């Protein structure tokens, strides 16, 4: 139903390696900065948080909104992006 963005496809298409947090779908410059301030400087750290929450999209979205001030669309997009990445590579 929801169409994926190019950023989403780029992220989910390959192992994230050392990609920055801004490479996540839904995370732009501003949100990326806020996350980095909190210590989530790389995408894999955010992945760590996602896995800590047992890959629960709702909980992760809630956390992301709280931590970075993302809106529900951005949080949902990031959550979906990470979920698909996990399905593909984890």
């Amino acid at each position, binding site marked *: 139903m929801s169409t994926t963005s190019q950023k989403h496809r780029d992220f989910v298409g390959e192992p994230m390696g050392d990609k920055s947090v801004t490479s996540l779908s839904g995370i732009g410059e501003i949100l990326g900065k806020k996350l980095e301030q909190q210590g989530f400087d790389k995408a894999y750290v955010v992945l760590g*948080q996602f896995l800590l929450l*047992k890959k629960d999209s709702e*909980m992760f979205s809630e956390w992301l909104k709280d931590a970075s001030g993302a809106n*529900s669309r951005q949080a949902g997009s990031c959550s979906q992006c990470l979920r698909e990445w996990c399905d593909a590579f984890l």
Partner: protein
Amino acid sequence: MSLFMEDPAHFSKSRLKSDLVAHNVVLPPTKSRKEIYVDLHLKHIAQKNAGDFSSDDEDQEQDLADKEEEEDAEILVQSCLTDDDLKAALLKHGVKAGPIVASTRALYENKLRRLQQSEGQGHVNGVEKGVLYSDSEEEEEQEDGESGSEGANEETAEQSNQAQQGSSQNGDFVYPQCFLLSSRMRAHATRKREPIPKRNSRNVIKSSQQSRHHCSQIPVGITKASSVDQRSGLGSGFPSGTHSAVSNGGSSISSQQSFSITEMVQEVERRKSLSSRPNTERELNGSNVQEHWSRSNRPSQEPVKDTIKEMFLNMEASPTGICATRRRPIKGAAGRPVQYIYPDTPTSPTTLERREVERRLVPIHIQILVFFIVACLLYMIYVCVEENSFNPFVALLDSPDQGSESEEGLMLQAKTQDTPVISGQE
């Protein structure tokens, strides 16, 4: 002042900082994460409020005691729960929590609070309200503003629905609602059908539940609504209620047989030959539509038909007992017979365009003809003016223009004149 539920995790970092300063708590280093502020906030301020609770109004205390008898201690001292306790509490509510770490703790605490709130309220007001609130909680959690208003409308609709019943409160409460709501459904059949398509996908389940309520009532609702609409829609002296009434009469007359459209058409043609054209055509077509449509509602029309017949006694006698007056065509009535075309049909832009195009159809042939004529002319001119390569044109001219010797003579002269020139040039 402060409510019995405090939610520091939802405060902003600056708010947390200011709170801590207000309570004379040593601030952590500025670069630390929000969770640290939240923890400190919870530790110091929650403890303070734990003390304040005892001095709160008696009402509040009683409410607390009423609503959350079992979970009272847990709520007040939630910040003092160990990770394991928090995990156990979540498990009690059926939530399998992941590891409770600094970053996840706040989230799980919030979740626990929300679960306890919903449970506590469900305790007091019965099961269905719990379902209600859990639905609304879902909406609050997931979508901020999108379905908020719709959820509120839903809630009020559902609440009003359930307030009316009061008795059907089992797990199976969907179906009993059907019968209790039937009286309201009839009055609001048309109105309620409108909100349904507007709902988004998440509410499809609820809307489908409600539409299931409507399902059994739709035939009756439609006939009533249609009769109401017809009565209000037409301004003719002959009330359109006779439509359904008379068509019901007609259908009842031949209700034993199975109708087919061909039979209708035959009847129409028969009556065409008998009586004057325009009026009866329209009447019959109106009646056709009515009979065709009433056929689908046949089973549930008996009571409606009787009342309408009583109301409208001045019906003309006609062979099939059908009288119809001219009526506006129903928008989107696909597949209806073409007899509905009125003399003064408004022309849509597409028809205007088509007419313009059609006006040009004949000239197109003329255009093609003119094109060919011009092409031939140009070719001839090119041939005459061209001086360099004569052989192909001579050959060409030989075959079609054998009759035109003058041209040949011209070409030969030019050839004889120019070949020495060309040979001279070379």
